[in-house]
């Protein structure tokens, strides 16, 4: 699918969800289960992306110490856990990757 079509459909869906209940006020309530389930969207979707990025770095399974992206990712997780600072996490992870790549090449 063309990127413009993806953006258009994705944008329309997003707009539709933002508009939905403002438009339907009084005629539809968000079910409790859905309200609950929505809390788990960010950890679920983002982890579903993070894990393969770290463990299948170039499309192949790599659980060795030579997997620099996995090691740098683990360092970033520790930084995120202790600092809760987004920019610091990104910088630490990038720095770790660049330094590890120097060691392995």
């Amino acid at each position, binding site marked *: 699918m063309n990127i413009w079509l993806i953006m258009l459909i994705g944008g329309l869906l997003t707009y539709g969800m933002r508009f939905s209940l403002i438009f339907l*006020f009084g005629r539809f309530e968000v079910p409790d289960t859905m309200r609950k389930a929505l809390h788990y969207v960010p950890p679920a979707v983002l982890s579903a992306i993070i894990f393969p990025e770290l463990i299948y770095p170039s499309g192949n399974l790599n659980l060795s110490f030579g997997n620099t992206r996995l090691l740098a990712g683990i360092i*970033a997780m520790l930084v995120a*856990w202790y600092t809760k600072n987004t920019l610091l996490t990104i910088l630490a992870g990038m720095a770790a990757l660049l330094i590890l790549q120097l060691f392995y090449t």
Partner: protein
Amino acid sequence: MSESGKAFWNGVRAEIPLLIGVFPFGMIYGALALNAGLSTPAAQLMSSIVFAGSAQFVTTQLVHDAAPGFVIVLTIAVVNLRHMLYSASLAPYLKNLSLKWKALLSYLLTDEAYAPTILNYEKEGITPVSHWFLFGAGFSLWFNWQVSTALGIFLGAAIPSEWPLDFALPLTFIAMVVPILRNRPMIAAATSAGLIALLAFSLPYKLGIILAALTGITVGTILESGKSPKGML
């Protein structure tokens, strides 16, 4: 100044701390979108067509991974489902507005516009001009997002393409996820989704991501049942 003007600037003022926080993300998005292979106009216009930070980051990652269109669209829908909650939450405050205002304010209804607006409405109640507050908060965020995206695209074009800049995307996601892992259902949702994503990695069309996300959401919801919900999105 008119009452509506005052409400507008109050919205802008309430948004300023969030603008400062969002600006670097707009720049990171702009730089990464180019790096992932989006054209300059596509990268810039996604910020006004989709206008949702986390969905744009996820889209960029999936374009980089060459995921098929329907998987990207489905993922955008799941990531942005939470906007229905904001829509439901603000609906009683906006119910007397014209359809034009409702349509415009819906377009500007992001996480960052919702947060200060609902606080203001709950505290101040509703007045004939209070929709201008949401307009001020939402419009300033929109403007800030367009400018920061453009700056990111401009600076990103100067970064050598052999730098592993694509790694900044998973790092951004790590920075978003790790701090919200504060209770067992959240941790279980994240780890189960991650494990399924690994096991289902070889599924065609990157369908593993959708399967993994749905698994994580289900696991978290089931574990939470019976307990009071904790935390925000």
